[in-house]
């Protein structure tokens, strides 16, 4: 294999048959290139798709209050159900096995003012767990903490867009903003993958919100996340458990579909994931098709190359080349060309993908990429099949009797 003389011979042959080399190399490069581009674009499509669902934690369950639609246990229908602080405590006690984070959410709109800048933003009264449920990313300062909750402090964590609107380039942390009629101290600034609208929110301790609203203990929504390792079945179990528990506690008829609502992200996710699987299948199918086309391309080129060289190989055999050395020469040359050009196609394809980045965003293709291992495997597959495709005609050429090869056309 590492016979220097043979390599010299191969390099001479390659150097003097540029068209042939170019043709076989180009086929391989193009095959790999197209494979990488298509696969990458497919992944980009998947990225866009997944992004729609990345806003909230994928293991979240939302509880919304509603109105009953059936009379039950002496209560009339059309009764408004409300969640309260003790519901939070009960969830914590009864479902601790499932629970990861738990938070209420009390949403109000409030005119927010800083010096002479003002605007309407929605404020959300939350617990510290909300940060993980909403996947809030803190840019500066801190989030609401447990002592804020128990001391009912007037602190606010504001979104990036809020800070931009009200404070312009001024430092926001430590300043006071007016929310409705009370002044809140800004303790943190966040960003959110959900986009600009999510960044127009203001978070305050839910206990502070309750204090402002005459010290009540109502909460709008309850959001919780369960331990991911419980999986889909665990999530469904928790959902059913919650439903049963609250129907009992709030005296809602077991047959009543309204009363309150539970939205389980796992359920949503399951559907999206099925769609993602279909997408993945399409991407893989396209990739496989390209690879097969590439393999057929190389096979054709190899048959052509060997055919073209039949006479030369006959001469070599008449001069004392053994069948083995003929096969080795043809194969080594083709494998060498495939490796180099496959590698070039790989680099070129990856470079193009890198450069696309977010340029195709409006076509729902975001950050197309290919795992380097996938690209390498594809290249290796093409090289191996190129070698096999080269071996068969080379083997045949090597067993042709030199007289036949040398016969004048």
């Amino acid at each position, binding site marked *: 294999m590492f016979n220097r003389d043979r390599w010299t*011979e191969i390099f001479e042959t390659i150097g003097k048959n540029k068209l042939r080399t170019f043709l076989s190399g180009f086929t391989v490069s193009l095959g790999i290139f197209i494979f990488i581009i298509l696969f990458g674009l497919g992944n980009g499509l998947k990225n866009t798709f997944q992004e729609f669902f990345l806003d909230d934690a994928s293991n979240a369950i939302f509880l919304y209050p509603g109105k009953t639609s059936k009379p039950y246990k002496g209560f009339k229908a059309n009764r408004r159900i409300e969640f309260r602080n003790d519901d939070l405590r009960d969830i914590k006690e009864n479902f601790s096995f499932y629970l990861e984070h738990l938070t209420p959410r009390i949403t109000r709109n409030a005119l927010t003012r800083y010096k002479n800048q003002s605007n309407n933003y929605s404020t959300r009264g939350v617990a510290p767990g909300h940060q993980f449920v909403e996947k809030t990313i803190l840019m500066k300062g801190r989030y609401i903490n447990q002592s804020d909750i128990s001391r009912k402090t007037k602190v606010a964590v504001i979104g990036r867009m809020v800070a931009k609107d009200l404070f312009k380039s001024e430092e926001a942390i430590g300043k006071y903003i007016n929310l409705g009629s009370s002044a809140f101290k800004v303790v943190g600034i966040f960003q959110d993958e959900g986009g600009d609208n999510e960044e127009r929110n203001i978070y305050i301790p839910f206990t502070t919100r309750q204090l402002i609203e005459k010290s009540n203990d109502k909460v709008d929504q309850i959001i919780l996340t369960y331990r991911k390792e419980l999986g889909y079945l665990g999530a469904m179990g928790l959902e059913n458990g919650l439903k049963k528990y609250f129907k009992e506690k709030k005296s809602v008829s077991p047959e009543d579909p309204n009363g309150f609502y539970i939205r389980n992200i796992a359920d949503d996710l399951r559907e999206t994931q099925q769609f993602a699987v279909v997408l993945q299948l399409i991407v893989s199918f396209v990739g496989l098709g390209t690879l097969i086309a590439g393999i057929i391309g190389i096979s054709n080129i190899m048959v052509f190359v060997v055919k073209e060289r039949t006479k030369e190989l006959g001469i*070599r055999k*008449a001069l*004392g*080349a053994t069948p083995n050395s003929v096969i080795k020469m043809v194969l080594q040359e083709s494998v060498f060309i495939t490796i180099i050009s496959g590698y070039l196609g790989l680099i070129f394809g990856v470079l193009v993908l890198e450069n696309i980045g977010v340029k195709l965003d409006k076509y729902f293709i975001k950050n197309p990429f290919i795992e380097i291992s996938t690209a390498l495997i594809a290249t290796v597959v093409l090289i191996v099949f190129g070698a096999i495709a080269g071996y068969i005609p080379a083997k045949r050429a090597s067993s042709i009797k*030199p*007289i036949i090869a040398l016969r004048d056309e």
Partner: protein
Amino acid sequence: MIKLKNLHKSYKMGSSSLHVLKGINLNIEDGELVAIMGSSGSGKSTLLNILGMLDTADKGDYILDSFKIENLNETKAAKYRNKFLGFIFQSFNLINYKTALENVSLPLYYQGISRKERQQIAVDYLERVGLKEWATHLPSELSGGQKQRVAIARAMASKPKVLLADEPTGALDTKTSCDVMDLIQKINEEGKTILVVTHELEIAKMCKRIVKLKDGVIVEDSKVKQVKASSYV
């Protein structure tokens, strides 16, 4: 040098078979220059192919330099060819993308001789056929006579025991034919055994012995007085 005993060869043509060689007996001594003549279909090319181990006989013995050639697999045949035989073809059969020098050094490559040595030997042989200045030229830049001389240099380079020439002048005009034959005669005078297959009597007369083939058997085998090719020029 070469001993053939009762050599038979037939080709299958569908259901029938064509008996090409029907018992050839031939002895060729060291240093002979033998012309093998015959019209087309007489079996002379088949005989040459068997002598050149490019093809195998069905029956009979072939002894080359007291070596019995039998049970040849491809690899063995390739090694024997490389060691014992040099080929000169009618259509030269040079590799068209290699220079004259590279063509001449190719059999040496298959003998496993180092690159430097190979080139040295190849230059020597090109000099002997008078083409040293043409060493870096491709076959397409050479005339027919020059190509055949490169082919002869290539056949000689591996120092074979026997040179086999298949219609070496078939593609050349009279004057160049004489040049090539002159070269072949000179090589023969240095002691090399050479077989020339031809159908031209004039070429045959430049050899020392003429073997005539007809319908697969030897019909005439006689020593002749050699005509020097140089006398034609």
